[in-house]
């Protein structure tokens, strides 16, 4: 009952104002006020620390983006079977998938992250088999736990979306495919999956923005993303506002770029007859 509205909570492309209606007298005044505010912030606040931390900030942003895209892609790959078995699967696949989505969506991501990092992280070293395995150099680091937690979270939310999308593909199209003599796999590959992805695309944009907004959580398990770099700045310079304002600005820009990029791609996909 509460599945279909998550995308309303993220920025969706329709939110952006149109260019032609943008410049009006009161908007120009407001923009001047904001420009004055920004100049005041730039002049009166302390920014002398910025050049020293610029390289680290750059690598932090790259880590955040790597987290975002790797987990979104992995999560989506996991979400497709999750959604599919909830629509067609036998009960012994349907029930676990449903349970997985409910549990992940019902608990905070921070808790899942800490469960994986502190829980599994404290459990793994006790098994010699894992300590001596090939994966151990990775399991000793923090980022695999971050990737795992973010991937599972994305998969659960997007799996629910894909369930709706798979169920929403008109039955007649699938019957038509069968009437053409397509096998089950071919039908899935040529008709069902593309149509479902197409239906889920607007929601996918919102989910990706939400995913970007949950990446800073990995900083709490010592992954050095942009949020962690800013925390470091705050510890070393004893400044309260400036680093946080810069961080907010960085995320605003990243979200803006993401939304605009998604709108560009969405416009390239023909929607006539959908």
């Amino acid at each position: 009952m509460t599945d279909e509205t998550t995308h309303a909570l993220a920025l969706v492309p329709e939110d952006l104002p149109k260019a032609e209606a943008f410049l009006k007298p009161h908007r120009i005044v407001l923009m001047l006020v904001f420009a004055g505010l920004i100049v005041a912030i730039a002049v009166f606040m302390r920014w002398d620390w910025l050049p020293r931390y610029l390289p680290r900030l750059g690598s932090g942003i790259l880590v955040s983006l790597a987290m975002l895209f790797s987990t979104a892609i992995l999560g989506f790959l996991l979400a497709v079977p999750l959604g599919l078995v909830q629509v067609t699967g036998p009960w012994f696949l349907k029930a676990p998938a449903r349970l997985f989505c409910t549990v992940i969506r019902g608990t905070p991501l921070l808790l899942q992250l800490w469960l994986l990092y502190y829980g599994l992280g404290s459990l793994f070293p006790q098994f010699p088999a894992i300590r001596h395995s090939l994966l151990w150099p990775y399991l000793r680091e923090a980022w695999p736990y971050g990737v795992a937690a973010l991937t599972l979270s994305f998969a659960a939310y997007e799996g629910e979306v894909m369930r709706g999308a798979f169920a929403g593909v008109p039955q007649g199209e699938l019957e038509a495919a069968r009437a053409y003599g397509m096998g089950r796999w071919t039908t899935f590959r040529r008709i069902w999956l593309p149509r479902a992805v197409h239906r889920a695309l607007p929601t996918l944009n919102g989910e990706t923005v939400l995913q970007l907004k949950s990446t800073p959580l990995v900083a709490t398990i010592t992954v050095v993303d942009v949020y962690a770099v800013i925390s470091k700045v705050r510890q070393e310079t004893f400044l309260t506002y400036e680093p946080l304002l810069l961080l907010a600005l960085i995320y605003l820009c990243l979200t803006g770029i993401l939304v605009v990029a998604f709108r560009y791609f969405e416009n390239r996909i023909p929607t006539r007859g959908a």
Partner: protein
Amino acid sequence: MAADSLINWSLLALAAPGWGGVLLQGFLHSIEIAIGGYALGLLLGVGGAFGKLYGGPVLRDLLECYTTIVRAVPELVLILLLYYAGTDLLNQFLGAMGIGTVDISGLMAGIFVIGVVQGAYSTEVLRGAIKAVPAGQIEAARAYGMSPTKVLRRITLPAMLPYAIPGLANLWLIATKDTALLAVVGFSELTLVTRQAAGTTKAYFLFFCAAGALYLVLTLVSNLFIGVIERHARRGFAERR
């Protein structure tokens, strides 16, 4: 050593050596913040929605900035900004007024922070819901000679509820889970308490799973209530599906 301490249930006992009581206390804190923040967010949301729909162009643009910024910046960053900057600004303001500084309790700060974040989202939900109310109903009410406040009270608010409730229900679930983020600024709600308990006893799995179960119970119970409320608000509508 770890193998048997993994399922040492006595750690969850309510009395002093066990951590169950502490956990429940933290859970209570979480619920308090979620309810307070959600209520504040609803107030802001109603105001914001009406401002966006019926306000002047300047107010509308300012509200647009508010909702866009809140929805584009991660909650964790907003919580840090509002938590530190908000308390600091309030104290500076009170100092300038000559009243002197106050200590802001973590509870109030948490409610304020969650409320501001929720306000932006509920503004959007309520704006969409109000726009979904058929214009004819409002025109009919106006034709009956109802005053604007009466139209609001009798027509707009009740008629928008069925459209708003799925979004508002989602927001409630998000509010309950956003309280976990306050652990990062050191407020002792369920997640932070869990981490402390787990760190002290080294029984990470037990405590994190227990906390997860508490959150899950909260979500599932909320879902039951939401179902009842939704059925009540949608009475008279055609059954979906």
